[in-house]
């Protein structure tokens, strides 16, 4: 698979890859010497991965012609519930941390799915536009979490969960430094491979593009458009649940007012930078991955360059526009 996928990227995402490359060179120069240090690159990848995983699901939603503004709020809600459940299992099971973690993570992914499904149902059965539905559920889920925690936080009682959040796998050596892949990055890449495969090689993937491009035509071609749309939100919900689990583990705590705040914009931006059409019908998971990395590299580069904070904001805006411009020119 990887060979054909790689070819796909080469062909379709030429522009995006060139833009990423140009940005990488720019970052290496501006962020010299810190940017290209292996630990920094691992950091960049890890920093990208939380919103990155959501951006994968968002790519499905946007290809289907929709949008999901509720991802950040849903992340906060499912993380809260998950941590509460985890703590409960920990007590009930007499301190069995592995069981508690498994339980908590499952609850988060399941609730993520449920929240996505709720969005999907309101959109398909209720026939309300995605923007409004998810604007509404954004408010609902955020305030539900605040209500649960009285605007405070839920701390996990499992030490292991926190360790898991920071753990790494696949250690290897670069020069004399041991570099390893953090779990979230690993998850991001695995999920990307799975979703890219789903998009490129299954019926569902084709239907998704068809529905996003022209729902009427898809319907006339015997595609169950509501079902296709529904699953886009449900899959996105599971991605949100996954991010919630990883991020809660990272912090080993869920602060309800802040958890996931602004994720929706980051995820949408990464998706669009990655070449997915805002109007739906066209997009690629690998493009989104590139978009996610580009955004994070820009941020990291500016940090490494040590510009004044306000100037950073200005330059960031310029570089975002510039990168997409380069990408456009090459297409």
């Amino acid at each position: 698979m990887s060979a054909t996928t790689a070819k796909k990227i080469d062909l379709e995402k030429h522009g995006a890859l060139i833009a990423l490359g140009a940005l990488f060179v720019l970052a290496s120069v501006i962020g010299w010497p810190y940017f290209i240090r292996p630990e920094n690159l691992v950091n960049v990848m890890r920093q990208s991965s939380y919103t990155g995983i959501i951006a994968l699901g968002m790519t499905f939603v946007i290809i289907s012609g929709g949008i999901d503004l509720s991802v950040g709020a849903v992340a906060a809600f499912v993380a809260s519930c998950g941590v509460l459940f985890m703590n409960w299992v920990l007590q009930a099971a007499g301190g069995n941390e592995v069981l508690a973690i498994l339980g908590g993570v499952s609850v988060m992914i399941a609730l993520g799915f449920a929240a996505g499904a709720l969005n999907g149902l309101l959109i398909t059965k209720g026939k309300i536009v995605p923007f409004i539905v998810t604007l509404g559920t954004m408010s609902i889920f955020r305030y539900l979490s605040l209500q649960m925690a009285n605007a405070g936080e839920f701390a996990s009682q499992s030490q292991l969960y926190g360790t898991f959040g920071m753990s790494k796998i696949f250690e290897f050596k670069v020069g004399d430094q041991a570099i390893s892949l953090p779990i979230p990055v690993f998850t991001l890449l695995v999920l990307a491979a799975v979703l890219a495969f789903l998009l490129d090689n299954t019926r569902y993937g084709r239907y998704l593009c068809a529905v996003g491009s022209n729902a009427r035509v898809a319907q006339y071609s015997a595609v169950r458009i509501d079902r296709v749309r529904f699953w886009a939100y449900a899959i996105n919900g599971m991605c949100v649940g996954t991010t919630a689990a990883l991020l809660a583990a990272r912090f080993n705590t869920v602060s309800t007012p802040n958890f996931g705040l602004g994720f929706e914009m980051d995820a949408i931006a990464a998706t669009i930078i990655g070449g997915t059409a805002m109007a739906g019908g066209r997009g690629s998971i690998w493009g989104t991955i590139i978009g996610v990395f580009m955004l994070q590299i820009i941020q990291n580069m500016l940090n490494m360059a040590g510009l004044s904070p306000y100037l950073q904001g200005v330059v960031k805006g310029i570089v975002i526009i510039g990168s997409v411009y380069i990408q456009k020119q090459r297409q």
Partner: protein
Amino acid sequence: MPDAILRVEKISKDFGSGPVLKDVDLEVRPGEILGIIGENGAGKSTLMKILAGIHQPTSGKVHVDGKAVRIADPIAARALKISLVPQEFNLIRDLPVYNNVFLGAELRKRSGVLDKEAMKARTRELLAQLSVDLDPEARIEGLSAAEKQMVEICKALAFDSRVLIMDEPTTMLTKYEIEILFRLVTKLRSEGMTILYISHKLKEVKHLCDRVVVLRDGELVHDGPTSDIGIVEMAQKMVGRELGSIFPAKGKPGDETVFEARGVTVPGVLEDISFQLRKGEILGLAGLVGAGRTELAETVLGLRHKSAGTFLKDGRELDLREPADAVAAGISYLSEDRQGAGIITTFTVTRNVTLVSLGEYCRSFFRLIDKKTEKTKVQGYVDSFHIKTDTLERRLENLSGGNQQKVSLAKAIDTSPSVLIVDEPTRGVDVSAKHEIYVFINELARKGISCLLISSELEEIIGMCDRVLVMRDGRIAGTLEGDRITEEQIMYHATGVQEEAAS
């Protein structure tokens, strides 16, 4: 006689603005080709869409194999093995050809993964059956209208169906492609497939179909074998009155050149195109699908960038960079791609007709749209072209295909151009409306307007044009005038057979 494979019983349909179908009864027998004809807006497409599950009848029943069925959606139609080549393109722009062909009926490997290679191979096969040279991985966006039509046909053939409905499949095709299609359709019939065939080209219907039914204002007014009815009679039954000669007498074009192309080249598409268009002349542009006629028109409009050559109007060189420049120079264009480039389906009749010419309605001091004049003018077109619509505020998506075409033509004419380029102007319009359009264009020419008529219907070219350019592979292969404008001559130039013989 075998039992009916498909029986329609007392089907009525009302979209809320009066009945479109009134108690239609129809039997379709297995293995026949049934022709369905009728005026624009008679309800043909609506009936077919009911069979394909796109619309639901207001009342009445459909029986398949003697059993009453409810075709609730296209999925149900597919389960009943009914497939439709719709009148308007139903293709996903963002997907390649082979995915469109198999949309909703994908071939999969045993693992459930898409079998792309098999789909591509099958698509190639289907396209080859239609003698279309097209890459299965090509994007829909880049295809010409005729090629899209071919893809639509492949799409209907891609899954194993028993009943194939074709709603005006030949409007975009030239004689050559039509023959290929007919061979294929006849072959399918011999394999036991049942075909419902809608067309305004009565000769085709007469030639191809076993039986013909006529719809008029939503009612079935005739049902009988094709052998019992002549073309003139068909037309009469459709419109309910006598029809005279369809083409008006040709006029006498002036001598002065109004528009001229000199050595126009667009890399890979057009090569060294030169021609002159005289005042009041109707100049035909013939050729096979993909010969580059549409491209030539688009180049005049400034939508394609030429690498060499010039266009001149009244002796002055034109700098055409976008359609607005062409319109300003008095050139107007009717696109062949009705829904892709011609009309905005979500706009009303009025808004579509005046889209290009809107400036003419903003003559007051404050440059506001003079809605009253606009309405009067549009009503004029509706009357003279018999555009079937209950109100001028109807959105075009709710008009029948032929009526959309008439709106599209009205839109092109409303700019009062001095050079009119029409690309397949009578695509999908019925015989009587065709006649009116011909008369109209002819009158324009008499008034001194020069017209470039691009058409795949040779009859139209022969009946209307003072002179004909024949294109092949992006070049002008020959110019015909007077008596030399014949079917044989055009086909020879278009296919290049004569040239080879000569050399």
